[in-house]
């Protein structure tokens, strides 16, 4: 294993933080403090963590409606995220965006997106900006199996390929676009098979194996930085929770869900770290507690923060 221990432990802690964040968010939702709806990332933590672990500050991501994990892995602060979920003035978007629009452009988070596939063309645009600015940076473009059927992907991936833009397409195939199973919505065996048509490498990776995701994305990032153009990565993973906070999940079986929960990406990675003596149970416990403490502080910050003033209704429409 070429990764240093700090990086491995960062991955472990990040995955714990993502899961803890989602659990906290669900709790706040049930308490009526989070409005609207939330799309939970639990079960998919290895995708965002392995992917964002492969990029540097200065690089960018476009996130999805199921974007909390992607934002946290890219370095978003959980206190500002939770404040946004609570619609507070201190949130990332001053309470004007909510769960589906967490963004920090200066930190390279070009926004989660309420439109399925809506961020895909933006990623090509950010990649073009890096290219024209002669910057050494790359863009990770996250999207799901559902978005893979949107026309914007065809248009953007083709454009990124002919222009050799520094973009890595990361399809988080969690098997369902709301209720529709990917086996019914995509005709080819792997979504990454479509990469052939874009003229770019297509790679399928076990999306619950954070190290495999990291290595696959790292190779694609190196290729993008070298000016060789985009790569299409499909990670096969699974969302443990419903599509959104109020989903009755009538479209899948309990057995199927339990089978995937046995493939828990965090437990799996933890076992690797324990087996290789990079982690012991005391250290694991300490990291868990640290993540919990940060989330509790974030919750306190979010709850105690003020709502936005009513006169901000009409600010920020134009620059």
């Amino acid at each position: 294993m070429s990764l240093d221990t700090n990086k491995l432990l960062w991955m472990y802690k990040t995955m714990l933080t993502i899961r803890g964040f989602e659990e906290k968010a669900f709790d706040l939702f049930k308490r009526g403090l989070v409005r609207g709806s939330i799309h939970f990332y639990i079960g998919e933590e290895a995708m965002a963590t392995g992917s964002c672990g492969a990029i540097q500050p200065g690089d960018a991501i476009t996130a999805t409606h199921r974007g909390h994990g992607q934002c946290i892995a890219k370095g978003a602060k959980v206190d500002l995220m939770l404040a946004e979920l609570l619609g507070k003035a201190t949130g990332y978007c001053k309470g004007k965006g909510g769960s589906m629009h967490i963004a920090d452009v200066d930190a390279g988070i070009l926004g989660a997106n309420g439109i399925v596939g809506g961020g895909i063309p933006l990623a090509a645009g950010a990649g073009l900006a890096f290219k024209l600015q002669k910057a050494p940076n790359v863009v990770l473009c996250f999207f799901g199996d559902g978005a893979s059927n949107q026309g914007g992907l065809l248009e953007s991936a083709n454009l990124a390929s002919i222009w050799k833009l520094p973009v890595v397409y990361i399809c988080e195939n969690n098997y369902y676009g709301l209720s529709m199973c990917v086996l019914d919505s995509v005709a080819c065996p792997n979504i990454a098979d479509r990469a052939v048509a874009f003229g770019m490498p297509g790679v399928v990776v076990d999306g619950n194996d954070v190290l495999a995701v990291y290595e696959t994305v790292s190779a694609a990032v190196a290729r993008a930085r070298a000016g060789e153009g985009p790569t299409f990565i499909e990670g096969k993973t699974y969302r443990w929770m419903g599509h959104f906070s109020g989903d009755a999940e009538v479209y899948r079986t309990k057995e199927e869900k339990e089978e995937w929960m046995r493939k828990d990406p965090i437990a799996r990675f933890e076992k690797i770290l324990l087996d290789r003596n990079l982690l012991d149970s005391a250290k694991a416990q300490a990291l868990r507690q640290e993540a919990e403490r940060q989330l509790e502080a974030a919750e306190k910050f979010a709850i105690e923060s003020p709502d936005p003033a009513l006169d901000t209704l009409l600010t920020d429409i134009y620059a």
Partner: protein
Amino acid sequence: MAIITYREAVREALREEMRRDERVFMLGEDIGIYGGAFGVTTGMLEEFGPERIRNTPISEAAIAGVAVGAAAMGMRPVAEVMYIDFITLSMDQLVNQAAKIRYMFGGKAKIPMVMRTQGGAGRCNAGQHSQSLEAWFVHIPGLYVIQPSTPYDVKGLLKSAIRDDNPVIFIEHKMIYATKGEVPEKEYLVPIGVADVKREGKDVTIVATSMMLLMALEAATELAKEGIEAEVVDPCTLNPLDIDTILNSVKKTSHLVICHEANERCGVGAEIAAQVADKGFDYLDAPIKRVCAPNSVIPYNQHLERAFIPSKERLMEAVKEILE
């Protein structure tokens, strides 16, 4: 002053802004060696090269979305969609992304992009190549909408649009490209959101946009022969709308006719009429009249198309009707 065409005025604006600011670049279909479907970008590939004059595949969603993404990351893209009719394919990126990002990100991003396109009938291009869809964008908070009718305005407004930090929908007209007008040799800007009184008059105010502005000026000349002095106002920018200039004119003339090439229902004329009725009701001596296209698909046949486009005769009739 130089006399140049509207087409040349657009090109001059693009050239000057690209020379001035290296963050400005263009992307669109056939804008490279071909010079654009209407010849606007002729010669620009030679001057600026393929990195900055980016020919794209036929991918209107990507053209718009790439412009939004590049703008968010510090560039100043000028995207082109060949016909406004094709902008339906860009709508998510313009309406849900470009217009929303700044607000939804709490003011922490800006999208300095221009989406250039052209609309209008007059060439027997039928229902998918002739529309005037400006009102769709006027309805969307977060976008500016500019629709210039003269070489002077198009150049000065395009330069302002490129320098502005907001997403701007910039709508030219296919039948105006070859018209000529005076343009200063020295650099100038025309401010966004300021209407222009193109002809002064005391009897009636005609607010007209784009190609209809040119027609309205002809109508005003003929009306003058009949002793009616029409004041012709070009809003130039549809959002933000300079309602004050329109109200000041109506205050003087007490009569208002609004003329645009888009069909009447929910067109920009409806908004202007509503605002004048709200803020200038006491100035009016007669009901506000709209002279617009009918609520129809634009036909191919030349006689039908001519019947579709608001005519000088219809406009003059409307003026006389409210002055009676």
